[in-house]
């Protein structure tokens, strides 16, 4: 077994792609700027891979999101496992036909004759002053689409392990990387992490906070703070938004009796609504308080620093919501 190594999330992603390609010659990479003549991506996530595996397998593309996802789909139909990079999550909208009408549906519409084992890596995140068209969160759209999976890692280790599993997966996986935590360091143990399994990051008995992506570390901060006041908060990192781990979430809320769901996407019609509804249906009699949701303000991601800070939940707002639930 490989010893754990400290690295950034971006290096963990690079390493996962490298290890996967090394292991399986059917894994291909494509996207804007991904090959080494283009610097291995604007953030360097794919740096070194075209040099190592050749430009037949690692292809930089024109700025053509539909053609990128379409080519990934086509190659996947005949035995390849392409990992397509769509630079930012907002640009997924440009390829929605390929993602929603084709990637997600071809298995079903063909009665299982064809499958689309693609991984679409994309990046997003508020906090970098990129404004409305470069930092949005549309994971609920994909979670709402039957036939695909949505994975959002919150650490370098999870990024490695979940990406390996996404590439192995027989179905299309949307893999969302959170830009503001891209350069955060963490220990990576180089093991696959199963899709669909949440992680209990911290155990507790009074309240369950369910979060993913950038919201996980804020939630952990809140749990630590509340512990000083004698409140015991359990924090669950969902890791996979679809299919989500009902078992772990329901077991936790059954124990604590209180649930707070936190995400960076706007609250309205979001992932939190689905989770809250399922918790309500399954645990109505055992809840000691109504399930609460915390999400971003119902507006595009703003540019101005104070506005952007006020946009998404943070340790302060999560802490306030948690304290209110516990009182």
């Amino acid at each position, binding site marked *: 077994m490989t010893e754990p190594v400290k690295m950034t999330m971006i290096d963990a992603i690079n390493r996962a792609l490298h290890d996967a390609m090394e292991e399986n010659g059917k894994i291909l990479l494509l996207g804007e700027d991904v090959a080494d003549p283009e610097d291995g991506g604007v953030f360097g996530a794919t740096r070194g891979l075209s040099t190592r595996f050749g430009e037949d397998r690692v292809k930089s593309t024109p700025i053509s999101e539909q053609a990128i996802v379409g080519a990934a789909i086509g190659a996947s139909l005949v035995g390849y496992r392409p990992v397509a990079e769509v630079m930012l999550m907002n640009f997924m909208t440009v390829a929605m036909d390929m993602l929603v009408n*084709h990637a997600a549906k071809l298995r079903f519409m063909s*009665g299982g004759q064809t499958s689309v084992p693609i991984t679409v890596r994309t990046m997003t995140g508020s906090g970098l002053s990129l404004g409305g068209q470069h930092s949005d969160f549309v994971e609920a759209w994909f979670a709402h689409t039957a*036939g695909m999976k949505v994975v959002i890692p919150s650490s370098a280790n999870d990024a490695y392990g979940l990406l390996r599993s996404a590439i192995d997966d027989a179905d299309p996986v949307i893999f969302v990387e959170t830009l503001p935590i891209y350069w955060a360091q963490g220990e990576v143990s180089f093991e696959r992490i199963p899709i669909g399994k949440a992680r209990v990051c911290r155990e507790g008995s009074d309240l369950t906070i369910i979060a993913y992506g950038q919201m996980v570390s804020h939630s952990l901060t809140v749990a630590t703070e509340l512990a000083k006041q004698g409140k015991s908060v359990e924090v669950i990192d969902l890791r996979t938004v679809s299919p989500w781990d009902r078992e772990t979430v329901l077991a936790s809320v059954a124990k604590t009796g209180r649930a707070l769901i936190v995400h960076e996407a706007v609250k309205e019609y979001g992932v939190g609504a689905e989770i809250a509804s399922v918790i309500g249906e399954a645990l109505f009699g055992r809840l000691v308080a109504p399930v609460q949701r915390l999400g971003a303000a119902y507006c595009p991601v703003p540019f101005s620093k104070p506005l952007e800070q006020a946009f998404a939940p943070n340790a302060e707002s999560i802490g306030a919501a948690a304290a209110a639930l516990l009182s």
Partner: protein
Amino acid sequence: MSNYPKPDGPTLRAIYEKAARIQFNDERVIKEIKAGKLVMPFYSTRGQEIIPAAISVSLTDDDYVNTIYRGGHDQIAKGFPLPDYWAEIAGRVTGACKGKGGPMHLTYPAKGIMVTTGIVGSTAPIANGLAWAAKLEGKGRVTIANFGDGAANIGAVHEAMNMAALWQLPVIFVCQNNAYAEHTSMARSTRVDSYAKRAAGYAMEGIRVDGNDPDEMYGAARWAIDRARAGEGPTFIEATTFRFNGHLIGEAGGYMDKELYAASQTRDPMPILRRRLVDQGIAAAGELDALDASIRAEIDAAVQAAYAADYPDPSELKVDVLVDAIA
């Protein structure tokens, strides 16, 4: 056109056989719809038979075809088994796609029929991926991306043609120009008088042929297929034709130019090809009569078997969404 290969007698007869199967099948579908036995949207390919018949005589089962909702001709020419076809359009569990795809999503990978899409223009980006995979395998496989004249104006097609030319993929873009996109004529869709001219914009070979003429269609397709197999890159073929039954079965066609419509009827490619086979001594009339009868019997058997089969069980809703059945 004089430089392109010409079909010999046996090839012309093979084109006739495929085209007759397409025509009789199309007529039978319409008959069943009118009799109320099939309930489905149907986009007739009557009048366009020669295009795929003359292309597919130069293809093998290993070559790939993507087509659209108006794709019965492309599918049957490529070898879609009629029992699997009929059971699928009748929504039966014995259908190629277990009744989950229907007429707009007919798939049969065993014969290289990889994607049939209801989304205008989407065949092209996915064809690139099939062709990329084929290029990596190095077995000389060719991919055909079929679409209409209306689709030629969609962004996805332009992205795909640019990328195919850039990557020198073994893909052939076949624009079946049947003069109308739903109710809109070519003249009211674009300022160019020939879509083939656009190929130059991608430094791609582009050619416009009379898609109803087996010599021209066969020659152009054969030339493009040979180029693709030899690694010489993609070709754009604009094949002019006419759809005899309007856009969708049951529609009045009031938007059509009366003279154009009348002229097209005098150029029905089917009787012209039949007459030619007899006149040139390639096949005797009696022999063609027997061939026609055997095709009709084959269709009849497929129709009866389809109606006799069961509908899928509602539990099938949870199967083929993802590789594992949904809980």
